[in-house]
């Protein structure tokens, strides 16, 4: 890469190096990134790492039920005799998958609508889109997600759809305000004056500058989405058993409080760890890109 003296890519590489330097100078951000990377690795290789991979689904061994944490079972066993640690790893995978699915659905839709509304500002299209987002923001996100799930069938897929339905408006709002403020910048005006096509303006001028805030928000959102997804599983409307989900693990364990506390506590702590990692990462990104309102 160093051999090509490409004038266009060099300043971008320099910029990236500078941003990385700034990011890495904050130890907390590095910690966040480390945690997230670790979690991703754990999730991908859950099958290989988990000591009892078949405990992830249906498994009954009442003799071993409700065992406290030990070397054999790091987090103890639950009411069915399943190893909680293994289930946590698979639950992690499910959580990450839901998060990604939600973002994969809501971000493109939200950003697209935001771009359209922001660029065609002060037209009926703009008003229509923004009022549409207001509609979806009129109710708390968890409620909306639950209603959507209830209308179909509880499960991984519809839980993700439900959350995505509640989530996309935020991206539309964010993109809209970015586009609005960016299209006021001089360089966009000049590009317009040169008669460049709309597609070009959006792709070359606006999007590259909008990527950082959107990306930061995505990282911060992962934590929130995982919390909401786990809350839905907690009340039984998220991922359905016997598929492991951290939220349902916590809720299952409640009836065993306080004697068999580990059944709820470990998955709950794990959720905290996951969210912590994504939040630290997101905060680090936010500091680097010096964004104010996310």
């Amino acid at each position: 890469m160093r051999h090509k003296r490409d004038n266009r890519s060099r300043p971008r590489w320099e910029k990236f190096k500078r941003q990385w330097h700034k990011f890495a100078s904050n130890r907390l951000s590095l910690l966040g990134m480390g945690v997230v990377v670790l979690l991703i690795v754990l999730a991908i290789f859950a099958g290989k790492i988990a000591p009892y991979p078949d405990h992830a689904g249906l498994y009954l061994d009442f003799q071993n039920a409700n065992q406290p944490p030990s070397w054999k079972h790091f987090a103890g066993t639950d009411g069915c005799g399943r190893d909680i640690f293994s289930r946590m790893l698979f639950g992690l995978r499910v959580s990450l998958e839901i998060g990604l699915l939600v973002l994969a659905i809501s971000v493109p839709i939200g950003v697209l609508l935001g771009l359209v509304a922001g660029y065609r500002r002060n037209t009926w299209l703009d008003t229509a889109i923004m009022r549409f987002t207001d509609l979806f923001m009129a109710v708390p996100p968890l409620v909306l997600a639950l209603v959507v799930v209830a209308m179909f069938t509880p499960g991984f897929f519809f839980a993700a759809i439900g959350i995505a339905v509640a989530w996309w408006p935020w991206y539309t709002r964010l993109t809209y305000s970015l586009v609005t403020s960016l299209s006021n910048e001089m360089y966009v005006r000049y590009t317009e004056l040169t008669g460049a096509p709309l597609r070009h303006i959006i792709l070359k001028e606006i999007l590259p500058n909008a990527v950082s805030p959107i990306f930061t928000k995505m990282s911060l959102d992962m934590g929130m989405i995982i919390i909401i997804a786990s809350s839905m599983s907690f009340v039984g409307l998220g991922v359905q058993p016997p598929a492991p989900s951290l939220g349902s693990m916590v809720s299952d364990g409640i009836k065993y409080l306080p004697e068999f506390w580990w059944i709820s506590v470990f998955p709950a702590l794990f959720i905290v760890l996951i969210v912590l990692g994504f939040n630290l990462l997101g905060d680090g990104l936010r500091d680097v890109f010096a964004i104010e309102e996310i």
Partner: protein
Amino acid sequence: MQSMPVFILKRLLYGVLVLLMLSFVIFSFIRIIPGDPVRMSLGPTVSEEVVQKIRHELYFDRPLVVQYVHWLGGVILHGDFGQSLFTKRAVSADIAEFLPRTIELALFSAILILVFGILLGTISALFRDSWLDNSVRLLSYLGVVTPSYAFAIFFLLGFAYYWKVFPLGGMPTLPPEIRTTGMVAFDALIHGRFALLGNALVHLFLPAVSLSLGSIAYQARIHRSAMIDNIGKDYIAFAYVVGVPRRIVILKHLMKPSFIPSLTIFGLQVAALLGNAFLIEVMFRYPGFSQYSLRVIMAKDPYGIVAVTLVFGIVFAISNILIDLGIARLDPRVRLRTTE
């Protein structure tokens, strides 16, 4: 230049419009999805005739628009939200019973968030980089990443099971003779039943704290960063240099503009409260509206779901308007803008 009443009116009207649309969307969707809620609620043994009769009574066999208009008319004119197939009684009765309790919980939590969030954030900002600041920041960080039900678990384990300081859950019943708002603590207060008030507060404490802790943390962070941003502003330096005493600069010149982003976030927190109350009510067996909503949603109760959504929307809209009012009072730039 807009005046306040116009501002409020416009927002109210707009809110009503949005809620109408929302209710229509939900209303239609429930009826479009497959499955027969009437049959589900009555069970398989009931004869088809009875099912048809009930279906007719509840208007389920009319065209969609007719159903909606009928329902809407009922809501506006009589406060009649229809019949719940789940509780087998008028939805409005359900609302009247359960909603005040959740409002009470939410109110208590909201007060905690506002007071402690701002207090901690202010202290943190004023003593920036001291041990006080750093511990507050650390704790708030942990607070933000912990879901409220996790807090609930820890508190239950700690304060309810081990150190039996607080009850495990539930709520004392409100004697019908003093029922005014339906909120146990509030009604007890205004009727001077202090024993009941104390009992209610004790039962409210853990749920409210679990619900609000994460939000307190977030509020503190936002308020802290707002204050730190504003400390460096020229108008603070100018106030100092022109002779305003330090105490007043901090309490007035610094606080006022910092409240603007803080209150905005507070609005979002309230929304989150309403959503998270679900889990807390489940965990503490708190007989509130969110629990009711959950049951109704899971039962796919048509009138119930719409009513529940509408209620959430209304409460949300009202709290948003109140907060926007607060912000408008603080920030004249908001008030004086004629168009957005």
